[in-house]
């Protein structure tokens, strides 16, 4: 998993409440056997004017010019500004996979659906909860300024605006530790590699047949 320490990037405002996981990545794309490549179908129904099909190339599909991510000024955005209850719906991890694959590293909203919020951390994506008014202010500023960028300082738990204003956010200490160090569950377990090897060594003495190769 990617580390998240300090990040600066363009912020794109998605002005809509209750964006559900089906809106983030519509269900026809979930049959894939992959966890990458969902970025091109992120927000598919909002982003394109036609109906997207799995395995279809998105080159040449008619874009919805109204949709925020299609506007030239938000190209390359890596921070998503969202409204309340972002990520509601199913528990599938495809939603954070799609956001991550598109290039987002962080979503800022007044509230998130719980499972989605948890799934973000498993995938190196930082969900930040800010007060309604702060989110509103960011929406206004980003609309007013071309190329509006935010900086996220995870160590200090701050969102920093171009004018230098610092907005504090809170985050669970354990999750912060994992993100700062790029640790997912697997990464955490691998920190105990020595224990695992020691166990294998001991067990191999006791029951060598369990270590006979399957081949």
């Amino acid at each position, binding site marked *: *998993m990617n580390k998240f320490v300090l990040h600066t990037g363009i912020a794109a405002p998605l002005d809509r409440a209750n964006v559900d996981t089906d809106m983030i990545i519509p269900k026809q794309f979930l*049959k894939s*056997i*992959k*966890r*990458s490549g969902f970025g091109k179908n992120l927000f598919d129904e909002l982003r394109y004017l036609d109906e997207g099909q799995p395995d279809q190339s998105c080159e040449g599909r008619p874009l919805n010019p109204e949709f925020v991510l299609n506007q030239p000024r938000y190209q390359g955005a890596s921070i998503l500004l969202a409204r309340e209850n972002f990520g509601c719906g199913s528990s599938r*991890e495809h939603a954070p996979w799609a956001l991550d694959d598109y290039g987002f590293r962080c979503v800022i909203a007044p509230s998130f659906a719980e499972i989605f919020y948890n799934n973000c951390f*498993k995938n190196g994506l930082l969900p930040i909860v800010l007060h309604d008014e702060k989110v509103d202010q960011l929406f206004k500023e980003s609309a007013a300024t071309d190329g509006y960028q935010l900086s996220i300082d995870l160590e200090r738990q701050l969102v920093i605006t171009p004018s230098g204003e610092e907005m504090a956010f809170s985050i669970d200490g354990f999750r912060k530790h994992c993100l700062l160090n790029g640790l*997912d*569950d*697997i990464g955490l*377990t*691998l920190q*105990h*590699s020595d*224990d*695992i090897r020691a*166990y*294998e060594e001991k*067990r191999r003495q*006791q*029951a*060598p*047949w*369990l270590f*006979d*190769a*399957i*081949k």
Partner: protein
Amino acid sequence: MAGKTLYDKLFDSHLVRTNDDGSSLIYIDRQVLHEVTSPQAFEGLRLAGRKPWRIDANIATPDHNVPTTERSGGVDLIVDPVSRIQVKTLDANCDEFGILEFKMNDHRQGIVHVMAPEQGAILPGSTAVCGDSHTATLGALGALAHGIGTSEVEHVLATQCLITKKMQNMLVRVDGELGVGVTPKDVVLHVIGVIGTAGGTGYAIEFGGDVFRNMSMEGRMTVCNMAIEAGARVGLVAIDQTTIDYFDGRPFAPKGEQWEAAVSQWRDLVSDADAEFDAVVEIHAADIEPQVTWGTSPEMVVGVSGQVPNPDNEKDPVKVDGINRALKYMGLQADQKITDIKLDRVFIGSCTNSRIEDLRDAAKVVKGRKVADNIMQALVVPGSGLVKAQAEAEGLDKIFMEAGLEWREPGCSMCLAMNPDKLGNGEHCASTSNRNFEGRQGFGGRTHLVSPAMAAAAAVTGHFIDVRELI
């Protein structure tokens, strides 16, 4: 201090460490992989630049999506594109990482939970996982076996460990002797009827008592397979001579001196006499008759001499509602006799009941009889290529085909209808599988769970009948 249960012993001998948050890291000796739940795990590894911790701890085979009709044309001829891609992806991942896989047309291919024990790949005293809830089957071997999700499949591939919490211990004792025509499937359906589909939640269930001691390994697998249908992720049977004999000579079982050493350790894989269980359920074997599920949950089960329940006799409003909904979906009347339920299809197969003893049981009943006119299809799907070969060597395939049943290639087939074997809307099926959920065997399909002998009896009579009348 109280002694240890079998589950305690298996858990403790695999504990790598206890994490700060109270969860445990346990070592996994074997992982079994199939095509549905592994692709994103492999891709996760690749994306993170990780390697499997121990390649030689894994064994794979495709089962859910494979066609059960003639398939010498290979994977390219699988009609459904999603099925084809899943099978091909498993092949490609196993080739890339060097994992042993029995591919679709290998004679050892089969349903994961049939293939792995048959190969001796899951040994007593080991831990095993698979991205599939019926991994509980393997507990019959005296192994601690968990079903896991895709992100855990990736975790086990990368670390050879699973993060887990210790479960509680439940003992289900069935003492006495089973009547003629009463099989392991009837025992486990009856148990689920008694404790309910959530009765085992949070527990590892150990099946003990005379009935399991006298049961074959295949029967024990049938029982443990459905522990999950009682809510328990783990089902176990203690080791005895039957277990040891089962492993003798299997391809991946220890040999020579190692065999002697292993057997002497395995003999300790029983719950201590003074072990304490958190819950104990006692059942008398004599109370169990051949079972049939009438509803849409495995706990909606009665003996074949019984009738469909009447919601008027039930007080709990939640249950009344459940009965009414199930009656409607199943197209049945309250108080209807089980033997009056007419059937459209019969499915003999799945990881619950597709082993050689199951096929023998079914063949014995259909021998010299014909499939009833109202049955439009009766499928027999062996659990693995080796089961199929054994059955053919015994001439069971001929018995089935002469009676008008179809003899197929191994796979999951109509158990969950991911391949073309499906029920039509509204059709009733006597099925030896393990789940009778709405739509499980096809949209609108109506599943009745039964033993292989009962399914065979239904095939030749066209409705449910007490198999004891035919044997």
